[in-house]
């Protein structure tokens, strides 16, 4: 479990995140939503320890001792991962073992076996020798997930995991994360652009507005016409299609006149 208390981030003199407080329970999927520049990526970066911040991020229980989560507690999938030239899929996934290695220690046979298992599980074993630079968008996303799994961290931080994918690929990748979460009891914190998709997968949504929490709760409580319209500064309507919420802009009155 991750507990975030009164988190704030300054960029120069500008306050880009203020007073964010939220707990992520084991096995929970927390969706981060909000307009561009509302601080979703910054929040993930601060939780992962990449962005200097005020407030606190803690993991562990009272029994085991509470501490700043490290790379063995959190696996971050960046929005635009780097795909180094000439690195194979197997090598890329093996880098996920880095947090478990001492400063001058090399990967053990155990680490390699674990990576082989992860590749097998995500149906990537055939691609182990392929250079990561040659992968398509959907394949690359699976490989990035494989590296996060090899990291064996109980919490997965995803930054717009499907922004570069077509609809079919989006569904496949998110279903995969969903399946892994159920099997391994992982917590997921995912910043997502599409409100409907976020609502479909998340247990709770955290709606950010200009760096502050505008709403936090189950999707049906957060996806409200008035709240979204105010935060996104546009007339938005929440519809339901096959029982799933879909957020669309209200019909433009001028178009109706035509």
């Amino acid at each position, binding site marked *: 479990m991750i507990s975030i208390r009164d988190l704030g981030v300054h960029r120069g003199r500008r306050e880009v995140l203020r007073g964010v407080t939220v707990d992520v329970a084991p096995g929970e999927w927390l969706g981060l939503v909000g307009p561009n520049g509302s601080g979703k990526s910054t929040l993930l*970066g601060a939780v*992962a*320890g*990449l962005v200097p911040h005020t407030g606190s991020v803690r993991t562990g229980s009272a029994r085991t001792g509470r501490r700043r989560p*490290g*790379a*063995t507690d*959190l*696996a*971050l999938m*960046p929005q635009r*991962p*780097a795909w*180094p*030239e*000439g*690195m*194979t*899929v*197997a*090598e890329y996934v*093996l*880098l*996920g073992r*880095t*947090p478990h*290695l001492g400063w*001058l220690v*090399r*990967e053990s046979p155990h680490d*390699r076996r674990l*990576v*082989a298992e992860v*590749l*097998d599980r995500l149906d990537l*074993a*055939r691609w*182990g*020798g392929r250079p990561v630079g040659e992968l398509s968008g959907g394949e690359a996303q699976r490989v990035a997930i494989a590296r996060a799994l090899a*990291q064996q961290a109980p919490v997965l931080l995803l930054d717009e995991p499907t922004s570069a994918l077509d609809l079919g690929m989006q569904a496949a990748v998110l279903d995969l994360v969903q399946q892994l979460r159920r099997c391994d009891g992982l917590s997921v914190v995912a910043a997502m652009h599409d409100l409907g998709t976020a609502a479909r997968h998340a247990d709770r949504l955290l709606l950010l507005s200009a760096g502050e929490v505008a709403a936090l709760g189950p999707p049906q409580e957060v996806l409200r016409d008035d709240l979204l319209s105010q935060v996104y500064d546009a007339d938005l309507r929440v519809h339901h299609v096959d029982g799933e919420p879909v957020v669309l802009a209200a019909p433009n009155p001028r178009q109706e006149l035509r």
Partner: protein
Amino acid sequence: MALLLDRPVQHAFRVSPVGTLVTVGALAVAIVVSLTQGAAGLAPAGVVRSLVDALPGVALDSGLSPVEEAVLWQIRLPRTCLAALVGAALSVAGAGYQGVFRNPLADPYLLGISAGAGLGAVLAMGFGLDLAWGPVGAVPAAAFVGATLAVAGSALVARGSFASPATLLLSGVAIAAFFSAMQTYLLQRLSYTRAREVLSWLFGKLATDGWGPVLLLAPYVLVGVAVLALHARHLDVLRLGDDEARALGLDPVRVRVVVVVAATLVTAAAVSVSGLIAFVGLVVPHVVRLVASHSYRAVVPLSALAGAAFLALVDVGARTAVAPAELPVGVITAFVGAPFFAFVLWRGRAGQL
């Protein structure tokens, strides 16, 4: 079937035995060629027999005359070892800089580091600057201080922007120009004979009349190569970028400091015995990447071996091309390296960098 699919995992980040064999073989050939070619030709078989004879517990008649033996052991072998050590030093240093700056064009010479080391060495040799510290002599110490100033300068001017290859290289050009200008000014102040002496060293010179420079250089190269080889794994993590490296629990600053210090130490030691030899640190790691692997765990050790072989061969060319006179090695490496640099730039334009 499962075993076959696991192969990429078992091979991940491992140096291929073929690559190791080829580079070790190339080094052996280069050493024998370097030992046999020169003003006095020595029979290859005799040279090999004499070398084997020197192994403890082996007695073998080399068939070389006493004079030839002296040429081999007092002139050729020290010089060959020096060329190999300098080649290995500059190549691993280049690989190290390329890794920490995430810049395929980083090279001790292009970053102005050699110029900084050269300025320090000129001050020590021509003007009696004495920074000797413990067992470290005046020239290497001054070279190291100069090299450190240059690398710090390059990194500062680029303001840590390692993402764009151009920024760091351009700041390296500025730093190199500055240090070269100071060198030229200082050379002007020296007497003619003294200046000529320092200048011929600056152009890159592997001439040695004994084992002194070899023994001076060897410890630095061995320690530097060991440190860099131990940090090759971290350089592979850094290929993902600083943020991803930190998300994987690796401190990029710590890696950078350790690797830059080791690479700079090795560069300074090489420059202080051999002068400025350009482009070795650029060409060798690149060729290793092209033919072997992009993983630094292969690039670092194979660059050391291939760099040693490369400079030993270049030195043969330097000794024999205009015999009985000698070309500075730096001239030949620049002659090979500059077109190669241009080629890498041109290829980078096509989006391969």
